[in-house]
């Protein structure tokens, strides 16, 4: 008899918690790669002027966002499970949906730019982490956290190309970065990525090809993180 009651209560409880979970709302987190306040269209690459006589064109932007959390006063209110998202400007995958519960308050969103070290050594994975996504190194293991490619007249390379494949999870070349931005309950989140600033922080004449974990990659990953910001109103 008693057991039946317990089972019944468990049943009720499961219905209750299910409806609770359904009460979450969808919030989008959207990324805007910018050059001088205009959004870059990666499907129709244009040349932008830099300096006096030079120009730059962006051909590819792809990066991982992982470990999304919502915080209130530094306290974690919610964190996404299995939180790995590939952002791909060329495929117009610039926006992701998160589903936090309705009843929490928060002031901040926090996420990683890149893939954590445990995931990096855990073997083959699917979904956005599938190696067919082209964000995994082959000759040496590890995810590429961030890819930016294009052409710039400052680069004395073949076709003036530059190539940044930033990754690395092992000490001392870990290049995963954490980004904290402001957020408000039930409001979509808009994130600017100021690529002009990123380019200005760098010396494209001498540093235009980073394709392996290194000191330079770590520095570059710091700079990338610094150009993520809340959309200016």
């Amino acid at each position, binding site marked *: 008899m008693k057991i039946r009651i317990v089972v019944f209560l468990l049943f009720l409880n499961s219905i209750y918690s299910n409806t609770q979970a359904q009460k979450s709302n969808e919030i989008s987190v959207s990324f805007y790669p910018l050059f001088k306040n205009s959004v870059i269209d990666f499907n129709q690459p244009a040349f932008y002027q830099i300096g006096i006589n030079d120009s730059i064109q962006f051909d590819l932007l792809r990066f991982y966002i992982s470990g999304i959390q919502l915080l209130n006063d530094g306290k974690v209110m919610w964190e996404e499970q299995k939180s790995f998202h590939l952002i791909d400007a060329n495929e117009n995958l610039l926006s992701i949906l998160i589903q936090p519960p309705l009843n929490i308050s928060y002031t901040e969103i926090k996420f990683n730019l890149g893939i954590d070290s445990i995931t990096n050594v855990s*073997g083959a994975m*699917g979904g956005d*982490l599938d*190696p067919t996504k082209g964000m*995994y190194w*082959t*000759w*040496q293991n590890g995810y590429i956290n961030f890819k930016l490619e294009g052409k710039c007249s400052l680069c004395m390379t073949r076709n003036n190309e530059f190539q940044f494949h930033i990754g690395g999870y092992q000490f001392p070349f870990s290049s995963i970065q954490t980004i904290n931005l402001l957020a408000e309950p039930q409001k979509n989140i808009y994130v600017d990525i100021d690529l002009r600033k990123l380019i200005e922080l760098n010396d494209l004449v001498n540093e235009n090809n980073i394709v392996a974990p290194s000191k330079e990659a770590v520095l570059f990953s710091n700079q990338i993180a610094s150009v993520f910001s809340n959309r200016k109103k």
Partner: protein
Amino acid sequence: MKKSLLLLIGICFTISGFTILKEKLFYVPKDWPKPEYDFSKNPLTHDKVELGRALFYDPVLSKDNTISCNSCHSQFTAFAHVDHALSHGINNLIGNRNAPALMNLAWQKSFMWDGAINHLDMQPLAPIANEKEMASNIDSVVKKLQRTKLYPTLFLKAFGDSIITGEHTLKAISQFMLTLISSNSKYDSVMRKKATFTEQEKNGYTLFKLTCSGCHQEPLFTNQQFENNGLTIDATLNDIGRMKITLDPNDSLNFKVPSLRNIEFSYPYMHDGRFKKLTDVLNHYISGIQKSKTLSKKLEVPILLSSNEKVDIIAFLLTLTDRSFLFNTDFSYPKELLLKTN
């Protein structure tokens, strides 16, 4: 009551049936350490292993359908590259390193001579993409497999999904490689007290324990570390080994200590295949050690061996040959699958 008893018996049978099946695919030999591979993320099944075996032997993985994993890793050389110092791949391009034997990979912590690969699942990405090896990429491989007659069915059987993904492809190849256990050499029988060494082998074993097992540690015959064993650098290759990965000068010229199981068949030897015979290897340790900043401490004291002792060590090394591994038909070309459709 009777019913539940029957049910219980039924359950017992299925469980024991499963364990028998599992033992056939993978087992930990007596007194061996725990495997490094996390089987919970990729539990072995018969269908997945068979799929992996087909992929391992199928040149479909290379750009022009000429090269399979087996081209460089053939069973009768313990899955090393027979007779080639530097492995050669597509269009006969010569690679930079000697293909190592593939066995007991479930126990291995890292892969490649410099440890560039951190997980067995990810290993195939390297040869598939290497311009001098298979010159393709996992994305095109997956699309190509999807277009074949054979593979969507095999993936459906193995993973319950005929849509092929990179994850499933890599996991299947791992499954096959994980079954490549070599633990039935004469040495193993002696350790299990089922055979005895000859006087010569016994003496060789004693010498081996004194001079070699600091790095080539039993039972896997590797301590899984990266060491500099005093090879002179080959100026045409300039291979700095582990330092390529860590960028740390202390790792310069350090290479992964390879297992010595089946060493009789996995010639030529060393990362660049510079030695053809075991005598050459022994001569290196006795008189060829190149002193350098990163030379392993274990080799700072010269190894002194008479020519008889040298022969004894080699006699011992030959007891590491495991014929049941080299000729195990479970590991060989899957005729039933590949000949039928291709």
